[in-house]
């Protein structure tokens, strides 16, 4: 064996020992440093990807778009009439609110963000959004920030933040866990993502339910606020099916969020109002 190869093997073995004995904190630091360094490039890459997707969509659906445009024009005229009526009702509503001295408190402080990249990792289910440490996100938070879709459904939580970009781990990923409750029952459990591949719709599973749970299809599942990761009462999905296992019951959940068409999300920066 050549001396150089021998030296390289020793170096390789030492490196391997170092990597495999890294603490979780050190790994997170490495990943954060890497993400921060590469975040400007990811932003550019995201813009390129968005541009390419928009272009392809436009090419594929140009005829369809013309039809839709015509429909949209008709709809617009109709909505103008409706809007005029709604404004009248809104004004009346405001007067009544003032009369009652009613103030609607916002549940959360949120920051809106645009999804710039979907599924940037080969297997892990993540998205990237155009907000980061420049928008006040903590690069090393005690707990990851929670992300919602525009319909209020739970999307996931922030995993890493760069200057103007952040990676969000979706609740459909297999390592994601969300403490949840089922509406109208005392049942609580943990929602986990399921392994899916190309062409499959994202699925969730609610584990650790009692075997005697009486659940119906369509029952709503919400976060229950336990475990400090997510604020309470955020919609996760609806019950699709319930199975009784040897120890626990498990339910199949249809997510409240359409993950394939996710374009804008909201990051909860302060959930004190929850």
């Amino acid at each position, binding site marked *: 064996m050549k001396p150089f190869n021998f030296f390289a093997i020793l170096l390789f073995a030492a490196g391997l020992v170092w990597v495999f004995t890294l603490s979780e904190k050190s790994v997170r630091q490495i990943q954060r440093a890497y993400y921060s360094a590469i975040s400007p*490039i990811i932003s*550019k890459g995201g813009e390129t*990807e968005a541009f390419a997707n928009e272009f*392809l969509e436009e090419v594929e659906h140009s005829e369809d778009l013309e039809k839709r445009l015509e429909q949209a024009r008709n709809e617009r005229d109709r909505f103008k009439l409706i809007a005029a009526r709604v404004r009248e009702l809104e004004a009346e509503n405001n007067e009544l609110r003032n009369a009652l001295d009613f103030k609607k408190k916002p549940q959360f402080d949120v920051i809106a963000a645009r999804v710039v990249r979907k599924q940037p990792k080969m297997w892990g289910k993540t998205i990237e959004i155009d907000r980061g440490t420049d928008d006040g996100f903590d690069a090393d938070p005690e707990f990851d920030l929670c992300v919602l879709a525009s319909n209020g459904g739970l999307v996931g*939580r922030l995993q890493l933040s760069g200057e103007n970009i952040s990676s969000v781990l979706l609740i459909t990923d297999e390592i994601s*866990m969300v403490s949840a409750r089922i509406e109208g029952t005392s049942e609580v459990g943990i929602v986990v993502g399921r*392994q899916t591949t190309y062409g499959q719709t994202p699925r969730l599973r609610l584990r650790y339910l009692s075997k005697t749970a009486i659940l119906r299809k369509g029952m709503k599942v919400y976060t229950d606020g336990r*475990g*400090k*990761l997510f604020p309470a009462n955020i919609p996760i999905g609806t019950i699709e099916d319930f199975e009784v296992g040897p120890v626990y019951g498990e339910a199949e959940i249809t997510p409240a969020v359409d993950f394939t068409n996710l374009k804008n999300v909201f990051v909860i920066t302060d959930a004190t109002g929850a």
Partner: protein
Amino acid sequence: MFLYSISLIGLLLLSCIVQQFLPPLSGWYDARLLILPLLVLCGSVTVSTGIMLILAFLGGFLWDAQQVLLISQGDEMVYHSSPDSLKFGYSIILYTLMGFLMQGVRPLFREGKWYLSAALTGVAIFLYLFVEYLIRGFIIGEFSLDNGMMEQIGATSIITMILSPLIFWMLFRVADLCGHTIRYQH
């Protein structure tokens, strides 16, 4: 040799940047062009075992820095059975195995039969992704070996393999510039 090895490491870092501009092909099984693993594979066949090991280590390290998912797990009383994620550094092992696979055809490559190595990159990428998928399934305790997964892995391997001649051409050019001899005969 030294200059060429340094250039390879530089190309490896560059491939991390290029990888960010390569989205999945949504119209074709969400296939991806995996430029970083491809560079490790193509580079492995042009260098000695020692350099290949260093290349595999750096490639695996960088790959895991961007691919491995780590999250905070909250209150242990509630999240008592948190699923394990893949250990940071596992890609180094897989890259090394792929590197040894590529080194197996190095004598043929040095005789100028680069196309065998190009075909082997497709096989190596397929094996790498398949093993990675199996390990993930093993760790989370759930397997779903279906057509969708095989199509996605297959399409990714093919699309990555198609680019390998270009990478080899680039490596030959870099080797010429660095005065490094890859082939026995020019």
